[in-house]
Each structure stands twice: as C-alpha cells, then as structure tokens.
C-alpha cells in the first residue's frame, strides 16, 4: 500500500488543521455538448468524510470518477496525497452506484476481485474477503451469485469489495441507496465507526439530506449542471450523544433545514 506523503497543499486556499487527502482544482468536464462540471474546486480533508449533495444529474458521479482516475477532466486537475492523478491507483477504491458486480462470479470471488487484480494469492485474498463479507452481514452467502441476491445485498457486496483492498481514499457513489431504511441506519452507524477508527478518507454521494448531515464531517452542496460548489457546510454534530437522540438534536435539525432551504429552490 502506498503511504501518504505528508502533503504539501499548495497554500492558495485557506489552511486547515487536517491535511487534505484529495484536492480538486478548477475541474471541468464536458460530455460532447453536455457541460457536466464547470471549474469546480474542492478539498477533501484526510481522515474525514465528505458528502456530495445535489440534484439528480448534477455531476456527482462524474466528479467521483474523475477523482478515481476513471475519467479525464476536460480542464483542471486532481491531487491525491499531493501527487496529481493520472489514472486509477491503489490509494483509491470505488463503490459503484450500479454495483458493477461480475454476474458470473459468486460473492466470494466478487469481493476478492479487487485483490485478485492486484495479484494477491488466492488463499490470502479469500481470507480477507471472508472477513469483509462477514462485516457487511453476508456470511453464508459466499457461494451465492449476484442474481440470487436482493438489491441491497448486491450493494453490500460492492461495499465489501472496496473495503477489502484497504485503500486510503474510499469513493462511495450512493452506497446505501438500495438497502432498506432499517439496514441503512445500521450501515450509517457502521460507517461512522469506520471513519472514527481508521484513518481513511471517505467521499460519499447521497440524495438524503438527513443521511449527509448525520454521517458527514463536511458537506459540499452542488448546483445543477454545470456543477459548481454552492456551499460547504461542516455539521459538527456531537456524535457522542446517544445515537437516537441525534435525530432530535435541534442543531442537527437546523442544519437539515438550512440545506433543504438551499436545495429547495431547484426543485420547483
């Protein structure tokens, strides 16, 4: 695994306590005629979770793919741990919006596939995969094929695959969209624990304002196409309160309302 060099965030933006794991500078992206992103700049502090929030089709997936090195920006650049992104790298792992599972491979092989491509030995990678399968609650389904799983279960396979490669930066594109509310809440809590315990950086796309406020250290609100950053909000909720109480915390509710107000104008 590549170890993060202790950054040199070219200090033209305000300095913050934690160094930035990922920096986007003036990124634009056009698909043919469609201008998806326009001169977007954004910083993602190390060891924190940043959510991207914005209307459907505003370019969230596009930005994530550019950070992942899967798409070339039309202009601008991305730095991960101080080095410019040229393509996919072992320091970033992706959770895909449409899961991107191999339909012909069972759960175990799918979860181990990231490690397989990195050349890990079979026994080693399967041991690691087993561990993460258990972590997402799929023990017993190792031999099942994707078409035998419900949508939520499939999404968890994709999650386990991204976790198992142990990358510094996790790029998660609506990772909980297909799981039901009950399971989703459990996952949100698991995610919070992950952020706290491991020094990983998470970039998280969601449509749910409550979810974003609940799990994020920092929320970037994007405007509709061509996307720019409207506002950056740092919820700073006291998470050591009882989990159930957070949801009726007035501070929490205020932030939700504030974001809601900001986004609302784009619905009508």
């Amino acid at each position, binding site marked *: 695994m590549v170890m993060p060099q202790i950054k040199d965030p070219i200090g033209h933006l305000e300095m913050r306590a934690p160094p930035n794991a990922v920096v986007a500078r003036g990124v634009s992206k056009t698909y043919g005629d469609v201008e998806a992103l326009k001169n977007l700049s954004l910083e993602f502090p190390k060891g924190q979770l940043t959510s991207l929030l914005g209307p459907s089709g505003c370019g969230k997936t596009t930005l994530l*793919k550019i950070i*992942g*090195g*899967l798409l070339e920006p039309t202009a601008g650049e991305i730095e991960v741990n101080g080095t410019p992104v040229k*393509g*996919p*790298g*072992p320091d*970033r*792992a*992706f959770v*895909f919006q*449409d899961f*991107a*599972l*191999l*339909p*012909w*491979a*069972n759960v175990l092989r799918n979860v181990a*596939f*990231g490690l*397989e*491509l*990195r050349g890990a030995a079979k026994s080693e990678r399967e041991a690691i995969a087993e561990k993460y399968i258990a972590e997402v609650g799929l023990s017993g389904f190792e031999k099942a*094929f*994707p*078409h035998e799983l419900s949508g939520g279960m499939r999404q968890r396979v994709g999650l386990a*695959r991204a976790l198992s*490669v142990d990358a510094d930066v996790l790029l998660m594109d609506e990772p909980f969209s297909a799981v039901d509310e009950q399971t989703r809440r459990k996952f949100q809590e698991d995610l919070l624990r992950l952020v706290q315990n491991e020094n990983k950086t998470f970039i998280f796309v969601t449509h749910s304002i409550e979810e974003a406020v609940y799990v994020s250290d920092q929320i970037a609100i994007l405007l509709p196409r061509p996307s720019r950053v409207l506002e950056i909000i740092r919820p700073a909720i006291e998470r050591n309160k009882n989990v159930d109480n957070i949801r009726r915390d007035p501070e929490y509710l205020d932030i939700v309302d504030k974001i809601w107000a900001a986004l609302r104008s784009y619905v009508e």
Partner: protein
Amino acid sequence: MASRSLQLKILSAVAVFGAWQIAGMIPVSYAFPTFLESMSALGRMAVDGSLYQAYLETLKPLVVGVAISAFLGIGLGLWIGLSSKFDWLFSPIFIVMQAAPLAALIPLLVMAYGIGLTSKVFVVCIMAMPVIVLNTAGAVRNTPSSIKEMGRSFLGTDVDIILKIIIPAASPVIFSGLRLGISAGFIGAILAELKITPTGVGDIITYSRSIADYPSMYAAIFSIILLAVVFLNIVERLEAYLFEGNVRGYASD
C-alpha cells in the same frame, strides 16, 4: 419437476416417431421407410461397423473446420470488438459473408482446392466462421462499461480486463455464436459431402439413395442429426462448466 420434463420429452418423442412409423406404413411414398425399418438399418450399420467408419470420415473436416472457426473466429471477433480500425476493415467482410448464400461457392472451392480435406474444411469454415466472429465482436463491444470501469479502478491491466472481465461477460453471446456456428458447420460438412465428394455419412446417404436402400439413407440422416444434437449438448455443458454463473434458469420461475 425434472421427471415431469423428462416424461414430456419422452411423450413428444413417442408422438413424433409414432407419426413417422405410421407415415412409413401407409406409405406416403415408396421411398419413405418406417421408423423401425430405419432404426434396424441403423443398428445393422452400427453392428457391421460401416457407420463408425463413415463418421471417422465425416468428423475429420467437421472437427478441423469447427476448431479452426472457433479459435480464429473468437480471436478475430475479440480483435474486431476491441479495435475500431479492425472493425472498420473486417466486419463488412463477415457481414457480407454471413448474409450471403455461400453454398453457391462450393464449385469454386472444388476448382481451387480440389476434392480433398482442404475444400471440405473450407466449406465448414465459411459456413461456421461469420456468425462466430460477429457474435464475439458484438458481445465484446457490448460489455457493460461499468464493470470494465470497475476493473480499471481496481488496477486491472489490459490483459486482466480482457481475460477476467470482457471474455467472461461476453461468454454467453460467444457461446450462442459458437452453437450457431457449429450447427452451420454441420450443414457445411454435409453439404460438402453431398456436393463435393461423397464420403462418410454423405456417401451413405447418396449411395443408399442410388441403390434405393432408403432405410439406410434415413438411418444415416437420423444419426447425423443425433450427432449434431449431442455435439451441441457437449458445448452447452462446457459453457455451464466454464461459466457457471451464466446459467440462470427460467426467467419466469
């Protein structure tokens, strides 16, 4: 459930063979033997060994031709699917080949390559190859981009992505092309034996026809159809074995 479907298969087989038997007994034509006559001719040829000898002859061009078509076809198909230059250059040829009635080319092949194995292999190949190439190329082109992206994001090399993602993803369509190709190859092999030189099973068919031994002729036809079906079942098994995740059963169940 399995026994029910087996029962239905047996039932429909009995119905069809029964109809054949009755049609032969009427008879619809002097040249139309009954099912039992044909089966006894088949048994006779199997016992005296002439059937196996014939198949040794027939299988040679067939197996060689199908093997060449499969390897070359899948290889070319991959290439065409992956490279737009190659696609531009070669796919029109195969589209024309697939659409064209190549049976008409047989006399030319005989003139060019004589009457030996070469011509027959050629006939099998020109029948079998286009569908294999075009199916493979189409499947490669249609590999879902999201799993290709996934492979790239987890740092797969180009070779990894071809071997571990594109080929398995394309395999159902490649195999269906292979099945159609093999069936076309059988058509080609028989056509070669009927139109180029009567050897093997084609010889049994033409010879028994020329001496008016119709039961043997029908027995030979029956056996070649049986062989084709067995051959294709083997291919199906191979697919199920290689890519077990592709077998997903009835959509409606």
